[in-house]
């Protein structure tokens, strides 16, 4: 699936550029975006090093375990496959909390760590497990309750009420998160029935 999408994006882009006369832009885009990817990863590396360092201390101090036992009922509902009291639940909770408060910088390292922990529990290492997909469904549907960036843009263009969209954002986020979880369940059970 990913292979097809990736090839399609490039092939369609290049063929369209041939007829549209935008080959020069495409040429430039290839090298500029490759450059951009490097700087993105460097930015990501700085937060990864910091947060994975802090989270290692938290893990050894059993803070993640305490956190996960507190929210256990909710998490076992969402992730029935994960063993109880496993540190992965602590990472999932940290990722969700950081997302809710709009702390994207902290959310990504904890999310990646959660994925790593789920990978150690995964039986076939090149295939996404059920828990991983549920976790990513949660992440892709937003989860953000406080859209800090949007509020900042609205302030910049002199909105009379920059924060008035918080309410609508929360409602839309809740709707898309619930739909993501329902869709995740639907496709999971469909894949089980097919076997």
């Amino acid at each position, binding site marked *: 699936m*990913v292979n097809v999408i*990736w090839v399609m994006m*490039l092939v*369609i*882009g290049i063929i*369209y550029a041939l007829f*549209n006369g*935008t080959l020069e*832009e*495409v040429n430039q*885009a*290839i090298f500029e*975006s*490759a450059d*951009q*990817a490097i700087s993105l*990863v*460097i930015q*990501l*590396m700085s937060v*990864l*090093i910091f947060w*994975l*360092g*802090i989270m*290692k*201390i*938290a893990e*050894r*101090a059993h*803070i993640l375990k305490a956190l996960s036992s507190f929210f256990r009922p909710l998490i076992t509902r969402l992730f029935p496959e994960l063993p109880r009291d496993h540190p992965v639940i602590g990472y999932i909770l940290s990722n969700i*909390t950081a997302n809710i*408060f*709009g*702390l994207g910088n902290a959310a*990504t390292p904890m999310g*990646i760590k959660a*994925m*790593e922990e789920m990978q150690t529990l995964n039986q076939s*290492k*090149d295939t*996404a497990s059920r828990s991983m997909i549920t976790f*990513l*469904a949660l992440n*892709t*549907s*937003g989860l953000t309750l406080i859209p*800090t960036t949007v509020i900042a843009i*609205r302030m910049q263009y002199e909105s009379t*009420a920059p924060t*008035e*969209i918080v309410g*609508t*954002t929360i409602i*839309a986020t809740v709707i898309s998160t619930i*739909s*993501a979880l329902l869709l*995740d369940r639907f*496709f999971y059970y469909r*894949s089980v029935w097919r076997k």
Partner: protein
Amino acid sequence: MSIITTISLSIIPLFILIVLLVATWKRLPAYELFVEGGKEGITLAISILPFLLGMLVAITVLRSSGALDAFIQLITPLLSWLGFPPDIVPLGLIRPVSGTAALAMTTELIQTHGPDSFIGRLASTMQGSTDTTLYILTIYFGAIGIKRIRYALKVGLLADLIGIIASVIVVSWIF
């Protein structure tokens, strides 16, 4: 609102404080653990790089060739016939694919229509209520070397679609 901002600002420093206090109380070598965990960050970031670079180049080629714009223009009449405000269609289509492009579009929409217009409010809500599905899948699956992602993309994109429709309905209903 100010309460929420205060919580957002203090949650990270407070979390670090609690972690360090508990670690000290349990007599753990906090600095050594920090360094040990941090090292994982380096290898992780490096392992994500090819996934991220590959996706980013493909998306940028599609955008800069003009193919994406052409597709959006092609599909806009259909979507506005279904009741979607035509100005918002490009943002809805780009939101799951490219985070930076979506942010630029939101800014542009707020600038031209005004932050307190219907389009301005709708763009703000859409920008805030969904995330860049393709980026998240690339980073998270890339970091751990998953090749078969099964139904993850379907779930992510369909949830985005529902989130966008929900934004249109909620914004027209509330304001």
